[in-house]
């Protein structure tokens, strides 16, 4: 079944010149459909903060992707059963759509976004503000909002299985091959011919 999953990763302050972190996300829908590897605009003061920045980039992307899928789906798919009324034309964010459970799971369920930062996960799933994250404001609240609204489910994945890992750092050959596998990229580089 077609399912949208995301991965995010951040590499905190690895650049000693300007101390900006690299944030990345990757979304798979049968294959890699959207990805980004970008130096973050903010200077993160902790790994947590840089992970959060990466979250937010991923959240922005997932909102767009889900909207796109929703648009397609409303006209593409017959309702799963006549019992459920067709989805209302209002914005799906306000009405999390559960009418077509047999569908991809893309919209009826939250989109899983994997991260390898346990602490970032804890923070997004908890309430309140601590000394460490008191300055995250918008990013923290946005991440919590989409988590609570059932749009995104931030989930832990060990670092070596995080497909976005290869978007934040240079990998050794073995890891890089793993990364290509996760991306579903077929061999046949230009040089192989």
């Amino acid at each position, binding site marked *: 079944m077609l399912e949208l999953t995301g991965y995010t990763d951040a590499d905190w302050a690895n650049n*000693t010149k300007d101390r900006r972190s690299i944030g990345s996300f990757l979304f798979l829908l049968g294959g890699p459909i959207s990805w980004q590897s970008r130096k973050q605009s903010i200077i993160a003061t902790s790994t947590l903060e840089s992970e959060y920045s990466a979250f937010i980039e991923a959240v922005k992307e997932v909102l767009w992707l889900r909207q796109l899928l929703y648009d*397609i789906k409303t006209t593409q798919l017959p309702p799963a059963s006549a019992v459920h009324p067709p989805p209302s034309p209002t914005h799906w964010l306000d009405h999390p759509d559960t009418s077509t459970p047999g569908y991809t799971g893309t919209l009826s369920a939250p989109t899983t976004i994997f991260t390898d930062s346990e602490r970032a996960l804890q923070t997004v799933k908890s309430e309140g503000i601590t000394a460490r994250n008191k300055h995250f404001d918008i990013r923290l609240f946005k991440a919590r909002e989409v988590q609570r609204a059932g749009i995104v489910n931030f989930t832990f994945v060990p670092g070596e299985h995080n497909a976005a890992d290869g978007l934040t*750092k240079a990998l050794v050959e073995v890891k890089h091959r793993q990364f290509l596998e996760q991306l579903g990229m077929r061999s046949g580089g230009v040089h192989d011919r």
Partner: protein
Amino acid sequence: MIQTINTRTRSIVIDANLPVSFWAEVVATAVYLHRRSPSTSLNNQTPYAVLHEGKEASIAHLRRIGCVAYHRIPDEVFSSKSELKFQPRSKLCMLIGYTPTEKAWRLWDFNANSGSGRSFHSSDVIFVEEQNAMGQDSKSTNSPTLPSDFLQEVDIAFSGSSSPGILSDNNIPSDSLGSLSTDLPNLSRSVSLGVIPDDNALSLSCSQGGTPGDTTLSFSGSQGKAPGDDSLSLSRSQGGTPGDTTHSLSGSQGETPGDNGLSLSRSQGGTPGDTTLSLSGSQGETPGDDSLSLSRSQGGTPGDTTLSLSGSQGKAPGDNSLSLSRSQGGTPGDTTLSLAGSQGLTPGDNTLPLGSSQGGTPGDDGCASNSCSQGLPMAPPKRPRPPYRRKDTRNADIQRRVEEMMAEDAAKRRLAASQAANVFAAQVNRWLDGIHIDDPVSYVEAMDSLYQHEWIEAMKSELGSLIENSTWIPVNQLSKDTQPIHPIGSKWVFRTKANADGSTRFKARLVIKGYEQREGVDYDATYAPVSRLATLRLVLAVATAYGWNIDHIDVITAFLNPPIDRDDIYMELPAGVEKIEPSIQFPIVRLRKALYGLRQAPRLWYKAIDSLLTSLGFEKSTAEPNLYHKPSLLILLYVDDILLAYSDPKAATDIKLQLRSVYKMTDLGKIKRFLGMEISKLADGSYTLSQQSYLESILRRFQMEKANPVSTPLARNTQLYEFSNDHPADQHLYLQIIGALMYAALGSRPDISYAVSALSCYSHNPHTVHLTAAKRVLRYL
């Protein structure tokens, strides 16, 4: 020949204190070194260069055979992280040779094979050259050190040698051997001069960092002594001229302090005197520069050498410039090529100020080898360099006689090879351009060209279709009482296109000079949404999931279709138009429809297609203004390309018919190519996206198609941001590469995404390390 190899082998075995059982490895090494050693009978070229049409092999990786080598154990060997943490990370081995086919060293692992030892390849090695792996301290085997008073003598001779002439002088005391320390402010190293006893040759060998001065010495029969650390020496092989030290010399001399740059010249075809003169001339052009001019001319006239030298020196701005020139064919073009070629094997790449000329030279053969040698984890520079034993000089005589015969043969082969290469290069050029005729850039040029008739026909056809399309209303004359108009200029664009059958089509297109339009007067809004590539991939994913087909429709001359949104845009037709189309009487027209070049054309087109699709019952996606949907139909627009995804072929045919009733379109059938990406549907219904041909074209464009592939886009632990010691790279080239890679990273290659984004941070100020890394990405593709 056999004796040459044997002598070399014997020297290495003795120097390295190796058991005789290593003879096979050492013979292989001796042959390897011989191939990279210049020979007088080959006009002081190396056999390698002769075989490779003047392209020199890198000798930067040569190390002292028998020395201690620490082979880095790859992380993957360790089964667990804890093991990785506490086990030794490298293995003590001995250097026994090189691998001719890979960028690696042959090492001897003493403990493998249950103690009997084993040879293997490794490219990740740290050498301790002053330490012999067989347990003998090689320092004790050094030739006797020189009396210190001699050093001063040489010092004088050396620092006085601002004129190259001194190098061919024989008045340096024979049997003098020396080393001296120069107090170079920025790099401390010593200089050593050696003169061969037959007082015919001066031997200077220079090495900086772990560079190969030693190799030169080991074969040339000369006796440069470089006992000190980081030694700089210049060497000249016996009976020959200092040419071969070209490579090694260059490494450090570029940083010679003071105004007296070092010039080293060698000429075989031309008169030495002339070359010397011209060299000093070119040196004089850069007074105050710490420059090195190094010239080697074979068969070329000295004048050529001068030209190329001063040219490259002039290019290198400011201080510490190195010019390395080697002319073989005699023409300046050749010089450029071989200049690039020899840069590739310049040792100590990291510190060599070659950036400007290296990057800027098109057809830079050196790129590949240069980046290769940099990509290799070379031992850090400024490694102590032990001295080498001198060889029996009589061998050189025999060697010379043998190789004279070889040289004749090689010369014939070289000629044949270069002819073949020329033919090939011409073919490639033609093929790359895909255009056999230079397209004229103006009407005047078209009318002057050989194909005047064809171009007239092409313009006629274009004007005919524009008139048929009622693109404009003729203005018969400018009446004085109406308000003044500002006609916008127009011009012809000529293109030849190759048909599938190999014939050539001539196309002329009339474009409006949109840049003459004034905002607010001639146009208001120009924004037209363009689809994200992610949308394309999402559509492909959805089509895969539902088993839909995707067809590709191309709208012919899309921009000529939409009616223009204002009625006061006038255009002046290009000169000569009335000769081509007699029905045009007055050159100013009022536009009714958009033309290519018009600022608002893309927007007008988008609005037109948008309203058409909406009228056909499509709903526009809220998230992507180029995505339209309808039950079991999806349309993705990309300017004038339309992708139609459908489950029911009949519905698709209906839509196509409806679209075609409004616009002229080409139905390209199942999607194959879109935005330069190849899209193919596999047997399991899934779509794959590839930019194979795009990537191949960028490899060709940067001449990297023959470069050695690598398995990862970016070497781990590449310190991209520590480049203060590095030299600036050609920014133009860098930006081109990054830009070309960026499209691949955005289109179908997330695997290079990180590398490209990391490298693009340095676009404003690229250095050699970045350019090298960017080329590595190209090698990875």
